[in-house]
């Protein structure tokens, strides 16, 4: 069975909790382990926070989270139409941050990569950023 969902919300920090809880609820049909739910919630939180802080440094705009579930395969996409990332490889380096004044730890992508099976970032300066992540769920059944 294939299922899908799409959320659009304002880029305000209150919505970080909303986004990860909504994705966690969507996942339940795949019978994930508690650890898998925690992994996905962390990854969603990181990507959405990045969109809010870095994608849209000024003003409130729209963040989109889409998810697809086929059998136990989860695919997630977090998209903003903000400033974009000039150098994706650099942005993904652990401890790298463009906003040290905000006390960013520089570990957002590190956590996404640690908790998901695959993370890909597509970005163009001035057009926005799309973070695509995949994870196979229900490992306990295998």
């Amino acid at each position, binding site marked *: 069975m294939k299922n899908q969902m799409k959320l659009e919300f304002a880029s305000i920090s209150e919505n970080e909790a909303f986004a990860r809880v909504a994705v966690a609820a969507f996942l339940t049909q795949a019978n994930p382990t508690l650890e898998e739910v925690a992994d996905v919630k*962390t990854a969603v939180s990181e990507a959405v926070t990045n969109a809010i802080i870095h994608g849209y440094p000024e003003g409130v705009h729209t963040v989109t989270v889409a998810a697809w579930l086929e059998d136990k395969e989860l695919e997630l996409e977090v998209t903003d139409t903000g400033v974009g990332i000039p150098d994706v490889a650099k942005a993904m380096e652990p401890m790298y941050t463009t906003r040290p004044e905000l006390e*960013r730890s520089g570990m957002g992508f590190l956590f996404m990569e*640690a908790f998901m099976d695959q993370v890909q970032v597509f970005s163009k300066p001035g057009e926005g950023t799309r973070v695509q992540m995949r994870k196979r769920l229900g490992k306990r059944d295998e």
Partner: protein
Amino acid sequence: MELQERGVKKLAERSGRTMAGVAEKSGILERVGILLLIRVPTELDHHVAEQIREEVDMLLKTEDIQRLVFDFSQTVFCDSSGIGMLMGRYKIMRALGGQVQAIHVDENVYRILRISGITKLISVNGGE
């Protein structure tokens, strides 16, 4: 929990100060002498981290606080924004010659703290 609280009281008594027990605006902070207890909410993300940072730093500017104790007993979620906030408070306390501690950390939160490496900088109890 009880033991920890008694420890906190003892420390305050030893420091020769009275129990201040200041109720801050969000109710997550409690000052006990030179110690500031931060009751971390259920989810420590960017939104919550910003609130804690603002409130703690405001107190650190005006008060003589030498120990920050982050109580994670209610907390089930933490992401890199939470780590950034802890790291920032660690740097401030180090500069002031003080200490930072995280207590009652659950398994899931501990995993995040461990991966980030902050367990090497601050004392963490629970979660192992």
